[in-house]
């Protein structure tokens, strides 16, 4: 609050990027891979995208990497996300925003033993984290995955899970597993269930709150936590599940 310094060292800039490839993940969700490796960022961080006349605010998306390129996954839920998926124009991205995700203490993060569970909308982020920490990735969806997409990733350290009860089953399995931490990113509801069911574990969740600025100015992205009000854009977006009120 009232603090001008950003926790990430990288200066925030807006970049105009062109799409390299768009893969359909599920009926309404897409993986968008951009040309070139435009800027440095770490997993857990996000960007804000200008949606032209299709929304009054930039729209936040978690960042990922695919084959060395910047990637985001986008679920179409309204005009802005539809624009992002469909446009062939350059996309104006403000990044990198928020804090890098680090399981446990920074020194010991790489040795730690975790697992990543994401909804298709957070695939890019999940994939990036699973690669970085070399941990398994579960992509869970209510609706079926595109077969082509599953084909493409089948050989990687990754599992595709479809259905609500299958997701609940996964959380139970993971709760009894010997992983140290579970990173969960998806809808509010999905994260809520994960935190509740994975009560034996350290759960990290990437929060969703309406964002005006993405840089700590507007205070719109507040969440209630054990320690009072926190802001998703500057204190997160990743929080420990037991520390925030869902």
């Amino acid at each position, binding site marked *: 609050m009232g603090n001008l310094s950003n926790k990430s060292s990288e200066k925030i800039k807006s970049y105009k990027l062109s799409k390299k490839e768009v893969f359909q993940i599920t009926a309404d969700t897409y993986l968008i891979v951009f040309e070139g490796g435009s800027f440095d960022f770490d997993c857990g961080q996000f960007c804000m995208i200008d949606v032209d006349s299709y929304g*009054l605010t930039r729209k936040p998306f978690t960042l990922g990497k695919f084959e060395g390129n910047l990637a985001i996954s986008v679920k179409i839920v309204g005009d802005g996300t539809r624009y992002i998926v469909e446009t062939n124009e350059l996309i104006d991205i403000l990044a990198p925003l928020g804090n890098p995700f680090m399981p446990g203490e920074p020194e010991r993060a790489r040795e730690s033993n975790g697992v990543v569970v994401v909804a298709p909308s957070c695939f890019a982020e999940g994939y990036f984290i699973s690669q970085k920490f070399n941990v398994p990735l579960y992509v869970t969806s209510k609706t079926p995955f595109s077969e082509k997409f599953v084909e493409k990733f089948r050989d990687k350290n990754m599992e595709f899970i479809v259905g609500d009860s299958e997701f609940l089953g996964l959380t139970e399995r993971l709760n009894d597993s010997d992983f140290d931490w579970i990173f969960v990113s998806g809808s509010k509801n999905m994260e809520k269930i994960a935190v509740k069911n994975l009560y034996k574990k350290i759960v990290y969740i990437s929060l969703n709150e309406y964002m005006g600025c993405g840089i700590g100015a507007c205070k719109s*992205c*507040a969440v209630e936590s054990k320690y009072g009000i926190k802001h998703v854009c500057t204190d997160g977006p990743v929080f420990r599940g037991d520390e925030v009120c869902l």
Partner: protein
Amino acid sequence: MSIRKLNLRSPLIIASGPGGFGEYLKIEGIEWNKLGAYTSKTVTYKPKEGNRPPRMYAKGGYLINRIGLENPGVHSFIKSLENGEYDELFDKVPVILSLGGDFFEEYLSITKIIKPYTSKFIAVEYNFSCPNVKRGGLSIMSDIGEWKNLLKEIRTEVPDVFLIAKLGIEGGFVEENAAIVKDTGWDGVTVINTIRGLMFNDEGEMILGGLSGPNLLPIALRAVYEVRKRLSDIFIIASGGVYKREDVELFLKLGADAVSVGSALFKNEKVLNELL
């Protein structure tokens, strides 16, 4: 009282709130020399946690927010000032300080507390129009007589500060309230603030907040027109729905001395480079 004008290097101002306490400096590529002033988020006497989430939503031509004046309070703000946390901001652009409080007494107290620091700012704007707090803000306008006294007392307390009152269109006619501002010896008004609105977000949660964004434009234009018609000699900062160069030109044509940009920053902060 002689008529005073803020000598701005440009008529473009960042509105109080959307710009926080200078956070937009973190973003590269904004042409700061094009900006006349950066208004700080409203600082209140006591620290404020703000309202419970959700705090914002947008649909069609409106953005609605119920931040609730989250801010560190004046004492902590002064500490940051003294620590040099805002030095980069002061370096880049002239700053207008926005102040608020829960009661009349708090508006006066905060004035006294901030007095030694006012020279750091080109002006002090008092927020009499935040619709998102139970006490203070807009609700101050429920007793116009008391409010008038408050204006007088603040004026007496800081005779040399360039004083601006930020007014909404509710709780009295904006031009009549502006006339009171003028009569009590203040230098300027910022018109308008957000308008009280009610929207439901996609989760079906009811959001009682302040409306900002493009739809405010014709209302804000009218407010500026009415205030200028009534008062030829008050400094006017226009606020509400500025997204395009044409909007800025219209406000100036109607008699505004400066024009502030709020919600448009959220669409794309580069708007600041394009408005002049």
